């Protein structure tokens, strides 16, 4: 069985399908394109689940690609090598799942250029899977940059949703590209220095993570490298003050794209911090971790207040994403087993929650042509099923027991409290607790203002959720309850 499970297939299958879809040979028939893409995403999800089933922690999947018997760039010691360990496995399956949800959610949101849309979605998936599985710094960087192209087109496109936000979407896409590129240039500096000083101190010309782990680089240079890398990942995560691209991009993109952005793209930043700083350069990470904890705390508290001030549903969700990613960062900064598993767990939990919330925002927007919570009111009366889902997912997102975010939030705080690094961590843990209150403030405000109250007459014509939307929300909810009741599925795998 295991010979059939190869990482290159996992990564490059979507890429190949994306090229097939965009080629003029493929039919332009909307329904065939959509169903074909959905089929590919489902197949990919099943394949990744199969890999998860046969995953053995002691013996992670490793694949290496040679080009004509050579390494990719032998001169720089760059190998096209992929490795899936526990964290990568979890995030791979999560990626596959979120993209499947996004493709299902695309039915009502995408009205034109189907071929281009699905091919960009597949290309983005390929790039993100490359980030999660590559075991070489430069290959990681390659996928990190490659992701810019599909992400730009996905955010910038209006995909047939006829409203006058065309330019706003383009501008926010440019902003996203420039911010990410700025971050990735810092990251490239870090990678180049890490590569060179590892060569100097270790004598191995290699860019593989396994050759760089704990290399005896002088401490000041290590810290410099760590800061460069953190700026790079901090743009994606995002860490305040590098966050300003995120609300714009998430608000102006169409619903499935927002789901992918918030669900997966932000996790690449957290994954990068884990892979580079936490695992590979642990020595310098222990030095910078207390400062990271402070930044995480600012992320958590500050953006929660900002989210409370928003009136656009998508902006509320976007800011809550930043807040939640602060929690992920805090878990990593704790630098112990509990904090680390909590942060991985929270990545999964937050991906599910945020997918659900963006889906709800998208459904509301499609029906009411409006996302402003001050003008929405009483839609619960006409959309009872949507209200049911919304209420449960909102409750899950603010950390009510029985749902996944509850576990991860509690574990993060416990992890930070138990951290041996510095008192700052304990301080951050204590002060991150108000997140639970703050998040309930803005989330319940959203629920209350848009769903309760007096129903407007224009809502009389709107329909409740369709089967596709039901499936997406149901899948999200199932995931949230599953991991809420059985958190060991993830924690046991990491720990």
């Amino acid at each position, binding site marked *: 069985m295991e010979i059939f499970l190869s990482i290159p297939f996992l990564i490059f299958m979507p890429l190949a399908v994306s090229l097939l879809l965009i080629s003029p040979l493929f039919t332009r028939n909307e329904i065939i394109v959509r169903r074909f893409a959905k089929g590919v995403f489902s197949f990919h999800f099943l394949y990744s689940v199969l890999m998860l089933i046969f995953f053995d922690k002691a013996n992670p999947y490793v694949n290496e690609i040679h080009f004509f018997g050579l390494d990719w760039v032998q001169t*720089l010691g760059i190998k096209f090598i992929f490795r899936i360990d526990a964290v990568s496995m979890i995030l791979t399956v999560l990626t596959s799942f979120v993209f499947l949800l996004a493709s299902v959610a695309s039915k009502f949101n995408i009205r034109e250029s189907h071929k281009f849309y699905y091919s960009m979605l597949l290309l983005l998936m390929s790039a993100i899977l490359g980030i999660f599985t590559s075991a070489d710094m430069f290959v990681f960087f390659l*996928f990190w940059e490659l992701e*810019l192209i599909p992400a730009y087109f996905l955010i910038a496109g209006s995909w047939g949703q006829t409203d006058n936000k065309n330019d706003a979407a383009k501008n926010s896409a440019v902003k996203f590209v420039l911010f990410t590129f700025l971050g990735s240039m810092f990251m490239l500096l870090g990678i180049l220095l890490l*590569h060179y000083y590892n060569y100097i101190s270790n004598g191995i010309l290699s860019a593989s993570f396994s050759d760089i782990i704990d290399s005896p680089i002088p401490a000041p240079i290590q810290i410099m490298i760590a800061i460069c890398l953190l700026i790079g990942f901090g743009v994606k995560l995002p860490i305040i003050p590098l966050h300003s691209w995120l609300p714009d991009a998430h608000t102006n993109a169409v619903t499935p794209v927002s789901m992918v952005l918030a669900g997966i793209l932000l996790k690449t930043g957290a994954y990068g911090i884990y892979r580079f700083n936490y695992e590979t350069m642990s020595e310098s990470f222990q030095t910078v971790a207390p400062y990271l904890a402070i930044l995480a705390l600012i992320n958590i508290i500050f953006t929660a207040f900002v989210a409370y001030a928003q009136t656009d549903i998508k902006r509320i969700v976007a800011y809550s994403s930043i807040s939640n990613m602060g929690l992920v960062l805090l878990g990593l900064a704790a630098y112990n087993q509990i904090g680390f598993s909590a942060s991985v767990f929270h990545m999964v939990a937050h991906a599910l929650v945020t997918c659900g919330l963006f889906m709800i925002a998208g459904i509301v927007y499609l029906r009411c042509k409006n996302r402003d919570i001050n003008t929405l009111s009483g839609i619960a009366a006409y959309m009872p099923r949507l209200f049911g889902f919304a209420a449960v997912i909102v409750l899950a997102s603010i950390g009510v027991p029985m749902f996944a975010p509850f576990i991860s939030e509690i574990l993060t705080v416990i992890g930070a409290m138990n951290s041996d690094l510095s008192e700052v961590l304990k301080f951050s843990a204590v002060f991150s607790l108000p997140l639970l209150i703050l998040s309930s403030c803005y989330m319940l405000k959203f629920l209350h203002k848009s769903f309760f109250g007096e129903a407007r007459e224009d809502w009389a014509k709107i329909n409740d959720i369709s089967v596709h939307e039901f499936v997406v929300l149901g899948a999200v909810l199932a995931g949230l309850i599953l991991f809420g009741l059985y958190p060991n599925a993830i924690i046991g795998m990491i720990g």
Partner: protein
Amino acid sequence: MLNDIFNILLPHVCLAGFIILQLILSMVLHPKFYRYARLVSVLGIVSSIVLLSTVQTEPQYFAFKNSLMSDSYTLLFDFMILLCGFFAILLSRNLVRTIKGNAYTYNAIFLTALFGAINIVSANDFLTLFVSVELLSFATYFLIAAAKGYYSKEASFKYLLTSAISTGVFLFGVSYMYGITSSINISDIYEIITNQEPSIMYSISSIMIIFGLISKLAVFPFANWIIDVYKGTETSVLAFLSTVPKLALFGIVCRLLVFPLNNSLELTFAVAFISLITAFWANTYAIREKNVKIIFACSASANSSYALLTASLVSVYNLSAVIFYLICYVLMNIAVFAFLNIYGDKNPMDTENFKCLFFKNRTLTLAYAISVIALAGIPITSGFIAKIYLFSAIASSGLILIPFLLALLLLTVVALYYYLKILLPLFTKCDKNIDISYLQSGFSQKFVIYVTAGITILLGIFPEILIELCKFIAYNI
């Protein structure tokens, strides 16, 4: 002497023969036969490329009393120069049609410029170098002025003035060098200098020599010409101007930096510093510009400054990075100007005029987009590998260069902004039915753009083979 010719000079002789042939044809043939002028040039260049196989490279071969030399390094540069000339002459379809009667003269001048360029790389003597540089420059003035209209004449005159000043600086440096070493032969100077204590005169003279040469690469104090020259020049000539002189001058500058002028720390510092200022100037200048040609002018200046910074930190590794970068860069540039050539010089060149081109002709625009993406250094193109290789060379040159490297990396973010300004209109949808009949082109132009864009992608996926070649050549210099 005959021996020398047969050993290393056959490509040069062949090219010179074709120059004379073109001149004779220009007098003999009726102007209505103008179509065959390009064919003759292509024949000349291809036979020169074939004759490169006869050049002796192992060991280094010196000819004409040490005034010319050849090794694998010059061979590679000769090959690249001739290849770029080949592509540029293929692109000159539209230009040749407008100047009809002068087509043969134009082609003769074009081949003269190529002859000068390959001579620059082979020069082992400051006198030969000077003559070759002048040959290239003088031919280039005419090439720039060949197109009709006021701007091309202005561009030609500006180029002439800057070249004249830089030649003066160069000759002044050479005269100092002659004063110190009483020789103008590069190999001899190297031997004399290595046995001497480095003096301040030596530093001044090497700075002047190098600055006289690199001002043709649009480096800061003499950089402004590039804006007007690119704006006024016909695109097929630009495909030549942005590649051939760059290759030739980088070829000789890298050799000079490795051999006779490597004793001077001041020179390294000055070149590195000037490169940084150039990169800053070029990238920030392009932000406000709307004209695509001017943006590419700034990008040309910026890109040569990255390579120059790397070349100034002399080491084998850096040299191979520079060579690899140059090869990737010229191919991208040719694809870019091939597209602009197909787009048509008569059409307005502002970025917004490029709207919706993608939906009119997808493959051509995709090839163009790939080349611009490669210039910005985004995978999976050769530009990505070249950027990593070049910057890793700078990173390995010492801690003191990290601020330089950081500055360059941040400037590439600025560069991405103006590349996006070029790219994004292509993919904008527009409702009105614009007339894009001008995107129809001859076979030769399509051939150039597809081949160069294809190589750009291939080198992005399989870079190792070319990198090995560059390393081999850098070791052998």
